[in-house]
Structures are given as structure tokens and as C-alpha cells.
């Protein structure tokens, strides 16, 4: 038999992605909560000198899809291939339901009994040989995180069998599973571990809410501390001592006023380069993403990675469930929001964990308007923060009020009600340093690989538009809105134009305009609200459909117009 492709199929949060990354060496995001993988990921493995495609399928409880992520899983299965059914050894009974459903299909299946290392200290004893006999397919005990059993899994792939069992109703299937589990699994009593006591404390409302506030507060300060330290002690000196002299030489060489000087170096401020204001591709174009944004991206994703792997996020989701219902969402929507704080693109993708169209629409709209990404946050903190921390607070408070108001309104206006939460809460696991570092590296290099070219392109683009006087034309058209409603100078139009490409550069462009503090606050808020960046926009079109996305866009314009005007009236 020749294997054409391998599908990793299993319940959510059983470690499919960990096994996928072991099999293929491909880098994928692995976290401790259901729904990390919402889109299939492909990789390759070498078997007998042949490249075989491996697909990491989003987790599913049944082969009858109940949400979009599960729908993806079921469609993948129809295309055929060899299935590695990843089974959580600590939840055998429940996981076997999917296994038996797979065995009813005409696909060869092999089972990986994953999280094997966890069974020992949980007092679970599984007879693998017997399970293999009872199921009629090969079963291999594995541990995706450490790599235990992966070799055996690969060696036995060809033993995978398609049983094509007769399809039986749910009730009978569960009876069958009950009998199998009784035969192969023994449970021994054990005491509550410290982690389990912590699990209980953080899910009970009386203790859980203070813990949640504490964790969010600490996370915020740690992110800030690491971000600021990196900037102050590393990136600023780096740019000032190494990059600046180099750029000054280039500036002299090109000659101020020349076309290339304008493009690469930008304007000299008081005879020297100002990385925040010169706006050349090589000066501000590099400084914004690396010197200002990268440190915060690093610290945010470090903190997020630890919380994700620990398994905290689903608990937070349960605790905020009540509040989220007022916004037309249920608690699990906090996960796209939190991911959106890093970058709106993965946030938009994560709305797939939400079941209904109405919910997805609300979540996407709220995120696109009121959740600024870390790149934007870093720039707002860097730029508005120079005028005082209180002004930064005004920007974020405005965004938060917008989030709540818009949620309340959408929940009233849109037909239907918010569905209820029904979600598995994974056990706490101590994050492994190696796994956290790997995930952090993937996300940071992802930022550099995807954002840096866009930033440079953005700066390049705006310089060209300036030289061709196209910006002046836009400025002329939009002056009534910019100056009349928002109280901004007409030059701010260039920031709005670049904001379609990258929000961080756009905020940065407010810097050289010599704005008053009030104008700066209004400008930064509008940049966050009026439109998501193009990358997020494209993903949202795919997720929501063109029609819904047009509605979202319309809402964004109305919100931007009114928020800018209101701030202009209120602030003094």
C-alpha cells in the first residue's frame, strides 16, 4: 500500500498539532485550549524516500459538524487518505466515540494514544495491547510534546486498517465504548494535586474573579515592563549608536533634497535624522517596526504563550461569559479578542470557534473597530505617551467604551439571541520552556516576515504619493471631514491612507505633523477605528462573506465619523 496523504484527526485539544509538528518538523501554534487550530495546516513527511503530505485537521467531537472548524475537519475526511486518530489517553471514553465513527468510514485508521505521560500521575492505567485487539486497528502510545512513541507510530503507519464497520446509532455506539473502556482501563484513586486545587479556585466565581483580575493586571505590567526595558536598554541605543551614524553618512552621500534622499532618509529635522519623524524607508521605516513595535510584540506573545500553554484562557472565558452575553456573544469570544490584541488576523480566524453567523458578525465587528493590535498599541503608547499617560488612557478608554456600546447596540438590533457557552475546560499544565520559546519565535518571526515588508512598502508608498502630489489631492477632498469634524490638519490624510496598509506606521505618521495633544488623541483613536488593516480586511471577507463585510465597513465609517466628532467636541 502506498500512502498518499495522512490526516491527523481527533477531538479538540488532544495534541494533534504537537504530533503534526513532530511528524513533519513544521512549525505550528500549539496551545492548551480547544480550538487552537481552526484551519488545516499542511506539512510533509519522508516515508521510504517519498514525500507524503500530512494534514493537521481542526479538532472535532463528531463527524457531524456543529461549527465551521468542525466542518473543515469533515470535508477533509471526505477527500480520503490515511487517518491518524489522535486520542487523549486521559479521556479515553469520550475520545473513542470519534474513533468508532471513523472506523465506520472507508478510510484506513491508526490510533495514537496521546498525552500518555499524563496518564501515570492521573492514576489511569490503559492496556494498549487489549485496546488494539478490541478496536481492530493499531494503537500506539505517544506523547506529542516529548516525542515519545512517534517513531513507532511512523513505523506502523502501514498497518492502518479500514474496518468499515456497520453504521450504528449513537446509543449503541456509547454502549460499545463503555464495554471497551471497562475492559482496557483501570483507574486508581489519587489525591488532588496542587494544580487541581488551583483549577478549582480559578473557576469558582468568588475566588476566580479576583484571580482573573490579578492575572490580567500582572500580565499587563509584565508586558509593559519587558517592552519598555527592551526599548530603553537595547533598541534605542542600538539605533542611536549603530544605525544613526551609518544613515548620516548615507544622507551626506545622497545629498539632502535629492529624490533618493527623500525616499530612503526622508526629511532632516534640525540638520539630523529623527527616527520618529524623518520618514524615510531606511530611517523611520526600520525604526517603527523594530525599534518601537517589536519589543512589545515580543513581550505580549511571551506572556500570551505562557497563559495559553498553562490552560488559563478557557477559564477566563467562563468567568466573563455573563458580561459577554450583554454584547451578544458568549464567553469563548474572549479568545479571538485576546488573540486580536496581538494581531487582528489570527483574531479574525479564531472567530471560527463561534458557532453562529450572528455571533461571528458581532465578534468580527467589535474586534475590527475596538481591538487595536499590539503594533498599534505600541505606537500609541510610544507617541501619545510622550504627552502623558493619561492621554494614552483616554484613547484606550474610548475604544473600550466603543466596544461595549457597539456590542450592546448590535445585540439589540440584530435578530436572534447569543448562544450559550458549552466548552471543555482543559486541565492546567505547566508550560514547557522549549514549547513557549518555539511558539514565541514563530510569532515574532511571523511579525518580522509579514509586517516588516508591509511597513517598508507603506513608507515607500506614502513618499511616492507625496512626491506625485496625490496626497494633496486627497487632503483637498477630505478637508471638510478632517478639519471640520475632527479638528485635524489636512496633512493627517496621509496617515489615514497608510492606515489601510499598516496601523503602526499610520500612527507614526501623526508624529511629524506637530499636532496638539488633543489632535493626537483624536487621530490615534480614529486610526484604530476607521478601518482594519488590509490583511485583516481580506481575512474578514473570507470569514464573513462580502455582504456582511460591507455592513461591517459601513458601521466602521459611521463610528469613525461620530467618535472623531464627539471627541473633538468633548476634549479641550
Amino acid at each position, binding site marked *: 500500500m502506498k500512502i498518499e496523504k495522512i490526516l491527523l484527526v481527533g477531538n479538540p485539544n488532544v495534541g494533534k498539532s504537537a504530533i503534526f509538528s513532530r511528524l513533519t518538523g513544521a512549525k505550528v501554534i500549539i496551545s492548551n485550549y480547544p480550538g487552537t487550530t481552526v484551519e488545516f495546516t499542511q506539512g510533509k513527511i519522508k516515508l521510504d524516500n517519498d514525500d507524503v503530505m500530512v494534514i493537521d485537521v481542526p479538532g472535532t467531537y463528531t463527524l457531524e459538524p*456543529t461549527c465551521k472548524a468542525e466542518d473543515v475537519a469533515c470535508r477533509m475526511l471526505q477527500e480520503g487518505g490515511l487517518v491518524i486518530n489522535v486520542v487523549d489517553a486521559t479521556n479515553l471514553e469520550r475520545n473513542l*466515540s470519534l474513533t468508532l465513527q471513523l472506523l465506520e468510514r472507508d478510510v484506513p485508521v491508526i490510533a495514537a494514544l496521546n498525552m500518555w505521560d499524563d496518564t501515570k500521575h492521573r492514576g489511569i492505567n490503559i492496556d494498549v495491547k487489549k485496546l488494539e485487539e478490541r478496536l481492530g486497528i493499531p494503537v500506539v502510545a505517544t506523547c506529542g510534546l516529548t516525542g515519545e512513541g512517534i517513531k513507532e507510530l511512523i513505523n506502523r503507519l502501514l498497518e492502518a486498517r479500514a474496518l468499515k464497520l456497520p453504521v450504528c446509532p449513537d446509543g449503541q455506539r456509547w454502549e460499545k465504548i463503555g464495554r471497551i473502556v471497562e475492559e482496557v482501563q483501570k483507574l486508581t484513586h489519587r489525591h488532588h494535586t496542587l494544580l487541581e486545587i488551583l483549577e478549582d479556585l480559578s473557576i469558582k466565581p468568588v475566588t*476566580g474573579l479576583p484571580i482573573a483580575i490579578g492575572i490580567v493586571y500582572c500580565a499587563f505590567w509584565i508586558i509593559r515592563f519587558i517592552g519598555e526595558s527592551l526599548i530603553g536598554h537595547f533598541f534605542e541605543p542600538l539605533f542611536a549608536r549603530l544605525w544613526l551614524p551609518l544613515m548620516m553618512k548615507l544622507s551626506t552621500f545622497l545629498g539632502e533634497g535629492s529624490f533618493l534622499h527623500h525616499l530612503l532618509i526622508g526629511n532632516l529635522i534640525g540638520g539630523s535624522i529623527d527616527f520618529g519623524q524623518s520618514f524615510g524607508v531606511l530611517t523611520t521605516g526600520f525604526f517603527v517596526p523594530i525599534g518601537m513595535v517589536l519589543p512589545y510584540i515580543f513581550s505580549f506573545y511571551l506572556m500570551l504563550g505562557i497563559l495559553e500553554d498553562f490552560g488559563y484562557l*478557557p477559564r477566563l472565558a467562563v468567568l466573563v461569559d455573563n458580561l459577554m452575553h450583554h454584547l451578544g456573544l458568549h464567553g469563548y469570544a474572549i479568545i479571538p479578542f485576546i488573540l486580536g490584541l496581538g494581531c487582528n488576523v489570527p483574531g479574525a480566524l479564531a472567530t471560527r470557534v463561534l458557532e453562529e453567523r450572528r455571533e461571528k458578525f458581532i465578534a468580527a465587528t467589535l474586534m475590527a473597530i475596538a481591538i487595536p493590535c499590539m503594533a498599534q498599541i505600541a505606537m500609541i503608547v510610544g507617541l501619545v505617551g510622550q504627552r502623558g499617560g493619561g492621554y494614552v488612557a483616554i484613547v484606550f478608554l474610548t475604544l473600550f467604551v466603543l466596544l461595549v456600546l457597539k456590542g450592546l447596540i448590535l445585540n439589540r438590533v440584530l435578530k436572534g439571541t447569543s*448562544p*450559550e457557552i458549552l466548552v471543555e475546560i482543559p486541565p492546567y499544565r505547566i508550560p514547557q520552556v522549549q514549547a513557549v520559546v518555539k511558539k514565541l519565535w514563530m510569532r515574532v518571526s511571523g511579525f518580522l516576515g509579514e509586517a516588516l515588508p508591509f511597513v517598508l512598502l507603506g513608507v515607500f508608498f506614502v513618499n511616492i504619493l507625496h512626491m506625485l502630489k496625490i496626497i494633496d489631492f486627497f487632503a483637498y477632498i477630505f478637508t471638510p471631514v478632517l478639519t471640520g469634524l475632527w479638528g485635524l490638519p489636512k496633512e493627517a490624510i496621509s496617515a489615514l491612507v497608510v492606515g489601510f496598509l499598516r496601523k503602526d506606521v499610520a500612527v507614526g505618521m501623526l508624529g511629524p505633523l506637530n499636532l496638539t495633544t488633543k489632535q493626537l488623541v483624536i487621530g490615534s483613536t480614529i486610526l484604530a477605528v476607521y478601518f482594519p488593516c488590509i490583511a485583516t480586511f481580506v481575512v474578514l471577507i473570507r470569514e464573513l462573506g462580502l455582504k456582511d463585510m460591507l455592513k461591517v465597513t459601513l458601521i466602521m465609517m459611521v463610528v469613525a465619523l461620530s467618535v472623531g466628532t464627539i471627541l473633538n467636541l468633548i476634549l479641550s
Partner: protein
Amino acid sequence: MNEIKIDLTQLQPGENGIIIELQGGHGFIRKLQSLGVRPGKRITKVSSHFWRGPQTVEVDNIQIAVGFGMARRILVEVKR
């Protein structure tokens, strides 16, 4: 001690009972079953959140959060 039939929201934190009935549509029941919530199973209430918030329960060592309205459609038998 009598055996009484109540719904999941009426179960006290720390108390446990046997699931006897799931009420609702096919999709709802199927989803619950695949999470391990099935008639005949012992279910323990872990916590219940304020203002008709989600109920957290434990079945077979797995914790699950169930919305209040859903929890009312899960009937259990307890000894009191």
C-alpha cells in the same frame, strides 16, 4: 435520604448526581454526549456563576462549562 430529580442548575457546588435525561434537539444532545455528558454518568457540580451564569461541572475527570439555559435541560438524580 430520598432520590430526587432536579436539573443541573439546582445541584449545589460539590454535590453530585446521576444524569438521567438530556432535553433538547439532536445537535445539542449529540454535542453534550461527545463531551461525555450522557445519561447514566455521574456528574459533579464544580461551581455556578452569578446571575444565571455558566455552570461548571465535572464528568469523568473532565471539566465542562455549560450555559445556564443548557444546564436546565440536563436532568439529574441526587440523594438528599
